[in-house]
């Protein structure tokens, strides 16, 4: 290639592209304007008798360092992008947490229906005996007042799980809508941020439920303070942990995609 300064011009435009932060449309527009401006400046210098390579060098120098040009773009756009991405991540974390709690309805119901309702829930010891017996007449399968009360509360617990799960699906749907709408926009946070945040936060959230549930199980207590079932805590914690691990798996797949693509290209040669 003959050295007519074109390489230097292209190299400068590449650096400018890398320095610019903003909406893709705005970046493309500024880059097109910059190229037209630089070519005008070079043409003017060459018309005045300058060597083309020198003309390119002077035009690029006068245009300014890419970082100086990029600094002029409104910063508010970057903050808006960051805020949008954080809202998106928060919606996904909350949504998946609620979905996981909702999914725990299935194992909770199974435990309750197989005659271990007291592992799912119960009533505080302060509830008087006659109050415990008011459900016995409706739940004929129960053998005593305590069993009848536990069976009644299992239905409530399962229903609560399901309500939280439905809320979770709505929040995840809101996340998906926002995510789809923002897909073509520039990002500030690194790829895989949402899923990594979910993996960490859901993993952390699952631990207290698992630890408390496990300790109560080891201690032989069916429920904690007579109300919270140890099995319910365990299945809820396990479901949240499972969703956390699923997030890690998808995040790992997303983060290693460039490397896998590279290995795939090398292997196909």
């Amino acid at each position, binding site marked *: 290639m003959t050295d007519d300064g074109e390489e230097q011009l292209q190299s400068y435009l590449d650096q*400018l592209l890398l320095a610019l932060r903003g909406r893709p449309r*705005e970046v493309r527009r500024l880059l097109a304007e910059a190229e037209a401006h630089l070519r005008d400046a070079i043409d003017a210098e060459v018309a005045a008798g300058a060597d083309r390579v020198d003309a390119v060098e002077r035009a690029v120098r006068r245009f*300014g360092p890419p970082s100086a040009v990029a600094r002029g773009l409104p910063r508010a756009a970057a903050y808006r992008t960051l805020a949008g991405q954080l809202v998106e991540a928060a919606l996904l974390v909350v949504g998946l947490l609620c979905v996981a709690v909702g999914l725990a309805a299935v194992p909770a119901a199974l435990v309750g229906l197989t005659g271990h309702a007291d592992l799912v829930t119960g009533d505080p010891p302060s509830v008087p005996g006659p109050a415990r017996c008011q459900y016995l007449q409706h739940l004929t399968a129960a053998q005593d007042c305590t069993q009848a009360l536990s069976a009644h509360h299992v239905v409530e617990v399962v229903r609560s799980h399901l309500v939280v799960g439905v809320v979770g699906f709505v929040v995840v749907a809101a996340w998906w809508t926002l995510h789809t709408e923002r897909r073509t926009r520039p990002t500030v946070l690194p790829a895989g941020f949402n899923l990594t945040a979910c993996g960490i936060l859901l993993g952390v959230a699952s631990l207290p439920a698992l630890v408390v549930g496990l300790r109560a199980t080891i201690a032989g207590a069916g429920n904690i303070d007579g109300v919270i079932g140890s099995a319910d805590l365990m299945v809820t914690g396990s479901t949240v942990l499972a969703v956390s691990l699923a997030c890690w798996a998808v995040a790992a797949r997303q983060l290693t995609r460039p490397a896998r693509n590279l290995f795939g290209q090398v292997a196909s040669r």
Partner: protein
Amino acid sequence: MFGERLKGNLDLLLLAVLAVAPAHGYQVLERLRLRSDGAFDLPEGTIYPALHRLEGRGWVTSSWVRVDGRNRRVYALTADGRRQLAVQRQEWAGFTAGVAAVLAGEPA
């Protein structure tokens, strides 16, 4: 020369230059250079983000036009831009009169 001082007043200068006639970025810069007798030497590329900012505020409007075989974004002042120019001109006149009076040692 005057690069740093220019930054705070770039909007006013761009509006004033565009008040003459619509222009693309390179023409804007040439007019600035010509009318300031070469006194303004800010990095040329910085006028584009400034022009985009003015457009974002509704003071200028722009469109792609093909000039001499090259696509150029041509900027023109809007009615809001003209009003803004008048306001900024007045403020600038008050400011420079104050500075001049202080420097001359007389009350404004």
